């Protein structure tokens, strides 16, 4: 009951102060305040004092409810509300105090002069004095420079252990001729399981699926539609195609397949990267038809083994994943 009355009084006080403030004529900007500070003592306002006291009590209530909520029912919303309101009410109390209770004054302060020529001269003289009596200045400077540079270089060297040499690591993928294509759980993917208008994700059997060179996206189109680049005959048995699933732009997983529903109006079947919408033409060896990717997705030649499971017919047609200097391409 007391709390309700307190809150009610706080509300009334807020309204009164707001009303009071809005009717108060805006004080004219102080016309050229004199050097001595033009101080205006705030008229002690009992109403403002009451408001601040009420707000502080409300802070206490909200803040005290925080540990209670924490102990009784750990609810993120209630916890946030309790702590946030406590802080908000305290902010209100402090701001009301700043505006209505403490003396209001406009003060004038002189800016420091930054440039003092005599002292500058003094500094220059002092610095120069330090080298008084030194004769072989140039040689000394040279020696000091050599010492500093080589010591700096020596201190930087340990940083080299941060990263291994690039070497061949970045070029290698686990795909080898004859390696079986498996799904996320390591089960072989049968050629009969691949359907048109959808895609599967495949991995090299027994390899680390988290390597950028591992995952491939598998799609199927009617073999008559294939327009693969020269030299890729037999890479897509029964129209089943496998491309690296890692975008050649910025390493995101190609996880959108834009399969045409009605060919005359809808675009050709394309794999799309969800990050920056690089779009790759499935029929033409994943050639880039839109978006920022600079080169096609590398294709993995496929074959079908005696048990109708998909196997790799060799390695990728190019380096998979995002490009770097050593990303060779056919000119």
């Amino acid at each position, binding site marked *: 009951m007391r709390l309700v009355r307190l809150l009610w009084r706080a509300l009334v006080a807020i309204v009164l102060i707001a009303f009071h403030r809005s009717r108060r004529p805006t004080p004219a*900007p102080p*016309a*050229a*305040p004199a050097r001595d500070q033009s101080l205006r003592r705030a008229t002690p306002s009992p109403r403002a004092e009451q408001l601040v006291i009420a707000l502080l009590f409300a802070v206490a209530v909200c803040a005290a409810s925080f540990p209670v909520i924490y102990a009784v029912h*750990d609810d*993120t*919303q209630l*916890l*946030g*509300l309790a*702590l*946030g309101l406590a*802080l*908000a009410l305290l902010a209100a109390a*402090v*701001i009301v105090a*700043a*505006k209505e209770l*403490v003396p*209001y*004054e*406009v*003060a004038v*302060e002189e*800016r420091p002069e*930054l440039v003092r020529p005599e002292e500058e001269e003094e500094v220059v003289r002092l610095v120069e004095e330090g080298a008084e009596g030194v004769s072989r200045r140039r040689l000394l400077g040279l020696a000091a420079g050599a010492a500093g540079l080589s010591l700096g270089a020596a201190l930087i060297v340990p940083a080299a252990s941060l*990263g291994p*040499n*690039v070497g061949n*690591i*970045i070029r290698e993928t686990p795909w080898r001729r004859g390696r079986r294509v498996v799904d996320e759980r390591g089960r072989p993917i049968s050629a009969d399981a691949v359907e048109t208008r959808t895609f599967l*994700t495949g991995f090299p059997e027994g390899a680390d*699926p988290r*390597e*950028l060179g591992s995952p491939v996206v598998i799609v199927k189109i009617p073999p008559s539609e294939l327009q693969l680049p020269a030299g890729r005959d037999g890479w897509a048995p029964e129209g089943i195609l496998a491309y690296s699933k890692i975008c050649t*732009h*910025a*390493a*995101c*997983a190609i*996880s*959108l397949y834009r399969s045409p529903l009605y060919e005359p109006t809808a675009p050709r079947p394309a794999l799309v990267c*969800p*990050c*920056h*919408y690089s779009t790759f033409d499935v029929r033409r060896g994943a050639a*880039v038809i839109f*978006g*920022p990717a*600079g*080169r096609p997705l590398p294709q993995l030649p496929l074959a079908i083994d005696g048990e109708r499971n998909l196997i790799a017919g060799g390695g990728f047609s190019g380096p998979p*994943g*995002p*490009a*770097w*200097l*050593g*990303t060779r*391409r056919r*000119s």
Partner: protein
Amino acid sequence: MARHEEKVVIRRAVRALDERLGSSPLLKKALRYVFPDHWSFLFGEIALYAFVVLVATGIYLTLFFEPSTALTTYHGPYAPLHGFEMSKAYSSSLDISFTVPAGLLIRQTHHWAALVFVVAIVVHLMRVFFTGAFRKPRDLNYAIGVTLLGLAILEGFAGYSLVDDLLSGMGLGIAYSVALSIPLLGANFAFFVWGGEFPGADSFEPRLFIAHVLIIPVLIATLIAAHLAIIMRQKHSQFPGPGRTERNVVGTPLWPGYALRSIGLLLAVAAVLFLMGGLIQVNPIWQWGPYEPWQGTNGAQPDWYMGWLIGALRLMPNFEPHVEGWTLAPNPFFGGVLFPAIVFGTLYLWPAVERRLTGDHARHDLLERPRDNPWRTAVGVAFFTWVFTIFAAGASDRVFVNLGIPYTGQVWVFRFAVLVLPVLAFFITRRVCRELHSSELHPLRDWVGTAVGRTSTGGFEEIRSGRGD
């Protein structure tokens, strides 16, 4: 009586300090330090206070977070992820969200504070730019501020990349690609930072962690200290007004008025952040799932301050120069390295460029209103229009997913808008500034004209005219 006792206590405290530090002259000066009043000066303070909240909530989070990509199987209270294999980083983040009491409140407050921190810095930067506050002697401090913006963006990116959910993994993949794309040295640089290939290099998560909780925050805190110390030395800039000159500062002294107001602002910022942290969901990591390189999600968006880079990556045509089969500059270089280099280069160099172009080498402590320097304001608006257009392009996938506006069309529109809008913005702004400067009107408050109404007989009559609200 009480008054008297109070005074005795204060005197004792001051004496105790004096006897040890001789601090009275300094305290006297500090208490009388004058802050000029203008609402636009508060953005920097908001950034400072958001940083305070970030440090406080961040310390709490480090006590629970486990920066490791070692795999574990999830058995926590969030049923949809039961049995999933995931990194300890991700599972400990889930635990912070679901099992640590008040953990989610602190985590979400931390995230909101990061978002607000960067907003406040950007708005503060714009205030400084458009009022000419970067001119000598503040050019040095301006450069520190621009550095702080860069560090804040880096720190934020490191923070949400630590979690190792699907979104943070996709973001790191893009960052890795951007690092690789640096001409000639890209692969070495990426290996240097990641300690090997991404994904797979287990050394990266602890590195990212120590960068996020120690290296970058210490840099930020040090630079903030320098930023404030330089302000104290030079004293605040102020807008021209009655009694205000280049040689003085007119405003509220620190004690008691300004100190109370500033503490009020600190509390208000903390209040808003904790309210948001409690009431508004941000980055529900449990919905994204653990990162696997072969998974992606449509409409994936990073935190807002990465949007300008995403936009640049999106808009860049598929240009990838190569010679004899060697890739000279992989495509992400243009949007991910060159574009931010141009933006930050422009920001860093602007004070020197303006000095050179105007020949004005004088010291300036009075600010300019944006309209009073139409040329600079127009250049600034054109520059920010350019960056914000690219930023908007970063959201085109969301526009496509949510509104169905074709993505390809959007990108083409943006590619042209990026070239056209800044030029338009330049001329419109310059014209508006000149207009406002010569008429001395407030763009929102004041108007000039005649309001006309109908009379009862059907004629027209003047109701109000002239200048006014």
